[in-house]
């Protein structure tokens, strides 16, 4: 009797440990969704206009954020009660972003939209802002749950990663060796995309992940890493790369090695350089990473300033664009470092 109980206990334990991590990942997602749905009592932030908006950019050396910023400025132009949009750029220096946020508070802004170099590094500075009654909104990253972040206008990276992974595995016919090209290590995007990839991989036992690499949203770096991988692995079937900016670097490296025929690219995003490539090669497609999150973030902020109750997490959905349709979105006469967007021409970056 004891032996049977012991056996059952051992099996249960083993099952639990095997299911544990994935269950934990599932739990994290559920928890995140619950938290995002929580309501924010914005009465503390209620203020009458005119409003000064502060944008603390962790970096502006990336075309996606430049577009997102243009979205913010465009949206601001539609509201008379906004007098000013102040932008600071930390140029990838977290200590500078701390200083920038402090400076914005000194300038008396009523709302702070930001994207971080590093979430934890600026928590203290953001707290100083919220303590002064200035709502803070994480723009364009993942969902952040923290007392110093009033709300997040976010793109669900897990969902994006899942959509990309499913498409890729379907295109691969359910089996093959792949590698993953992820953004800056430690960011929500990188963590969630990889987690989603692994979760979907469970449904496709024929897929093998050779390596997870971090290309930092840098086309040249992604290309260099891919060249190294091509040399290391004699056979690669597919690439999981949701960021079009890196996908194009990956694709070029594979092309130059003459191995484009053996590799299937996953959908990227609406990065113009990638869309052009998709149009020319008729494979890949895109899952969008909308730059209009900037507009949504500002609108969310304005609602809070008016005292309306909002949810902590505002999700901007991603859409799938098939390879065929990508052609319509690609702007051939625009640079590679450009994004398909809903911005009116006058507001696009110069």
């Amino acid at each position, binding site marked *: 009797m004891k032996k049977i109980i012991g056996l059952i206990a051992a099996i249960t334990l083993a099952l639990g440990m095997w299911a544990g991590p994935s269950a934990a990942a599932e739990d994290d997602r559920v928890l995140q969704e619950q938290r995002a749905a929580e309501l924010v009592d914005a009465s503390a932030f209620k203020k009458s206009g005119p409003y000064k908006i502060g944008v603390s950019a962790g970096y*502006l*050396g*990336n*075309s996606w*954020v*430049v*577009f997102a910023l243009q979205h913010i400025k465009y949206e601001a132009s539609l509201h008379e009660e906004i007098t000013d949009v102040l932008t600071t750029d930390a140029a990838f220096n977290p200590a500078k972003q701390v200083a920038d946020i402090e400076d914005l508070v000194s300038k008396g802004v009523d709302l702070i939209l930001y994207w971080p170099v590093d979430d934890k590094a600026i928590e203290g500075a953001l707290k100083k802002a919220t303590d002064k009654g200035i709502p803070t909104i994480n723009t364009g990253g993942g969902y952040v749950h923290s007392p110093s972040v009033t709300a997040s206008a976010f793109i669900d990276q897990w969902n994006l990663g899942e959509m990309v992974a499913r498409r890729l595995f379907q295109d691969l016919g359910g089996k093959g060796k792949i590698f993953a090209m992820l953004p800056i290590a430690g960011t929500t995007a990188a963590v969630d995309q990889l987690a989603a990839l692994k979760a979907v991989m469970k449904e496709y036992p024929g897929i093998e992940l050779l390596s997870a690499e971090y290309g930092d949203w*840098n*086309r*040249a770096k992604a*290309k*260099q*890493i891919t*060249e*190294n991988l091509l*040399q*290391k692995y004699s056979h690669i079937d597919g690439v999981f790369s949701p960021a079009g*900016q890196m996908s*194009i*670097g990956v694709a*070029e490296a594979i092309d*130059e090695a003459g191995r484009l025929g053996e590799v299937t690219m996953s959908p990227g995003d609406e990065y113009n*350089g990638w869309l052009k490539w998709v149009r020319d090669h008729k494979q890949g497609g895109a899952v969008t990473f909308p730059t209009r999150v900037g507009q949504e973030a500002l609108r969310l902020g304005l609602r809070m300033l008016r005292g309306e109750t909002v949810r902590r997490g505002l999700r901007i959905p991603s859409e799938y664009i098939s390879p065929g349709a990508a052609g319509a979105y690609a702007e051939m*006469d*625009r*640079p*590679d*470092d*450009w994004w398909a967007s809903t911005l009116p021409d006058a507001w696009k*970056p*110069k």
Partner: protein
Amino acid sequence: MTDANEQGGGRWRFVAQSWARSYAIWLVLALLFVAAATLSEAFLRPIYIFNIVRQAAPVGIAAIGVTLVMILGGVDLSVGAIISLTAVLTAVTMDGQVANIPLAIVVALAAGALIGGINGVLTAYNRISPFILTLGMAIVVTGVTQIYSGGTARGIAAPGFREFFNFRIGGMVPVLAIGFLGLAAVGVWLQQATRFGRSLYLIGSNPRAARLSGLPVEKVTIAAYAVSGLMGGMAGVALLARSGVSSTFAGRGLEFDVLAAVVLGGTTFQGGRGGIAGTIAGVFVLLIAFNLVNIVGLNYNAQLIVKGVIIIVASAAYVYLKEAR
């Protein structure tokens, strides 16, 4: 009165040591190559070798110019910023039209030479440290690049531009590789066969004597920095050919890789010695070391540790060879 044998033996040792000193880096390169080939037979394939040459192009081309400046006794830390600027300038001038390519390249070279010329003029006529001056210029150029581009990497490479440079002649040799080696040959010619080159060595080893003997020190200085800037511009074009239009910071940090290669190759900060041939070898030593780290399966970031150790060890070896008599 020394014994004839002893004298003969001493001379041989001297010859051997000075040979070793001049070609030390080639020895290191050869050793490293052998080590790499035993670890991975990929190194024996010509296609792979030329791949490395192609990867080395941007840093290598910039290093040619910086070598000349360092022989003079100066240093140029602005090349990284120049590369970023010219990569964007070239793409914008090209604007997707094949017909614009020659103009685009001229614009890049001119911009590089202009910035180099400014560096040269400021250094030649003032008593300031080229280290800080070119550092400050790097920041200025970075600011200009950012303002000019507005943060997005503007410009469209013409169709075929990238393909042309990456096209392998005879299925093996990429055009970019030939371009790189060709520029290196030009650099060596400048250094060895022209009066300009000889002046560099003379001024570098003894600036006072050079001035007293009537050498046009200011003109040579300006020319050296201008060439360095010009090479930086060329490197920007090469980078564009390799990586496409990706960012307004494409060249950031490259000045340190350039410096590492030049120093490894035997050119020192004091000036008056070294040469481009050594620099090229230095570039390859670093690149092979990186590739080795990657093949062996070590953490990608271990490359940095390897780079640092190689620099320190190789430099120490040079000093040892120089001083051991």
